[in-house]
């Protein structure tokens, strides 16, 4: 019988620890499939963040270097400058990338480092239990915004991908989602394209992935997929934000 679906070679034979319905597992798979298809498992280096994906090295069968919270782009810069012929990516959440790591992300993008950033936006701090993230929506309830996020007290959701798109140093930025099969296919294409751009020395690329967090959103997996469509995407519309090669 013909085998039509299997675990990507770049993922270890280990069960994910992620909660049921979480978007991380899908994002991991898309990255692993892209690595396999581009045949770069032997020369890619990943930088996982502090956050739910902190032990990504238990899942990816590639070389990985843990980064302190928010410093993924600085760590990736160090690796890439020493090993310019390797493919280097950081994997970061919204708090990691757009709060504590704002400076590192912004300036790596501004320098036009030839690295790829996978930016998981689930509008919440997942691992620490559902606190307000920089991308939390106005009115969204979190454990640190119990009455809902207030623009006056807590500020507005940060559109980091759009901000980075303004920088001449960035080459490819796209926002995707993993809540429907169609969106997953598009996200896969974007991740693979970002790696391909890096291999072609095009420059800095970032793929933002709107990702479900049923546990902290206090929803069922199905409800959270719908919430991405009906609420999260209204604030963070999908699509290519910048593609300098297009």
């Amino acid at each position, binding site marked *: 019988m013909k085998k039509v679906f299997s675990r990507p070679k770049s993922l270890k034979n280990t069960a994910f620890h992620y909660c049921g319905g979480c978007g991380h597992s899908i994002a991991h798979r898309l990255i692993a499939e892209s690595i396999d298809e581009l045949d770069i*498992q*032997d*020369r*890619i*280096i990943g*930088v996982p963040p*502090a956050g739910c994906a*902190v*032990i990504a*090295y238990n899942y*990816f*069968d*590639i*070389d*990985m*270097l*843990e*980064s*302190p919270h928010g*410093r993924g782009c*600085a*760590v*990736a*810069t*160090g*690796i*890439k*400058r*020493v*090993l310019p012929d*390797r493919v280097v990516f950081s994997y970061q959440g919204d708090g990691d990338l757009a709060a504590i790591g704002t*400076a*590192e992300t*912004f*300036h790596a993008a501004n*320098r036009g480092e030839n690295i790829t950033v996978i930016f998981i936006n689930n509008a919440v701090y997942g691992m620490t239990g559902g606190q307000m993230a920089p991308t939390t929506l106005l009115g969204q309830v979190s454990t640190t915004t119990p009455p809902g996020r207030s623009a006056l007290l807590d500020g507005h959701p940060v559109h980091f991908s759009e901000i980075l798109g303004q920088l001449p140093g960035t080459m490819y930025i796209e926002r995707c989602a993993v809540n429907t099969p169609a969106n997953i296919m598009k996200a896969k294409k974007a991740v693979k394209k970002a790696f391909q751009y890096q291999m072609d020395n095009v420059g800095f690329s970032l793929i933002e992935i709107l990702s479900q967090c049923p546990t902290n959103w206090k929803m069922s997996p199905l409800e959270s997929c719908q919430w991405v469509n009906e609420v999260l995407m209204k604030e963070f519309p999908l699509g290519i934000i910048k593609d300098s090669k297009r």
Partner: protein
Amino acid sequence: MQGNRVIGEAAIRAGCRFYAGYPITPQNELTEYMADNMRRTKDGTFIQAESEIAAINMVLGAAAAGARAMTSSSSPGISLKQEGISSLAADELPAVIVNIMRGGPGLGNILPSQGDYFQATRGGGHGDYRTIVLAPASVQELADLTMDAFDLADRYRNPVLILADGMMGQMSEPVEFSEPAPRQYPECYVLNGRGKGKSKFIRGLILDAIRMEEHNWKLYRKYQVITQKEVRFETFWTDDAEILIVAYGTAARIAKGAIKRSREMGIPVGLIRPITLWPFPMEVIRSFAERVDNFLVFEMNTGQMVEDVQLALGGIGKVQFYGRPGGVIPTPAELAKVIAHHARKK
């Protein structure tokens, strides 16, 4: 050649191929030297980072990727780097960090000071770790110890701190650069893509308490070996000394001048100069206590290394302290007066 620039030249000669730094006085000439001279190498990288935190984390990435990597700063900047230094220690990665100390706390000033002794010798960041701390007292020693720092960092896969002050960084003296030994760093620790082998990861997060404890004890055993093997010190006029000054770096230079003056006045005083502040020359100081019971610790702070001297002596002998914090540079004449007063009190 100026001290700051000497550190840069010695680093490049020692094979440093990655430098990231951020402007801060009084160490700017080092950053500028690296900007200008890393280009000499075919494969070297210089980055002016957006922050001290970014600089040390770039060094983390570069060190993991197999480069000899260095960053430098001055006191407030070193505070910011502590997150990365703790991670380098946890990950067992080699790197050299230069601290050209200035007056503190807070922003303080830009004058020479030794206020960062506690921070340097107690790890400095969070968690149970140590860094090797080298304290040069001349421009020649800045060159020699910078080269040694890279070898020590590799040998123990641990961050090494060069702890000097604004005086050392700014002053010029003749210098000769020695020929560095070829680098010996096992390829198995380099993260450069899995190739045809097994995938590797480097991390400090160990969620299981027992395994985390094991990792802490493993680091501890390494620190024990360093303590046994890497203590360095200099003695000066100690043979017939009845009073012993303990001082390092700039303070030790001032002490030498003061000792010459005191000797002319017939006061038998000598100097123990720790070159490694961690590991601290505990046994050396203890062995002197068999013969001398009068110690004067002299620092450009309000009293930090004095605690290590007291620890070394364990209650034997008399330990007194003289210090000038905040960027004041005492003169040899001033210290000679203190020594004379100290000798009379005895």
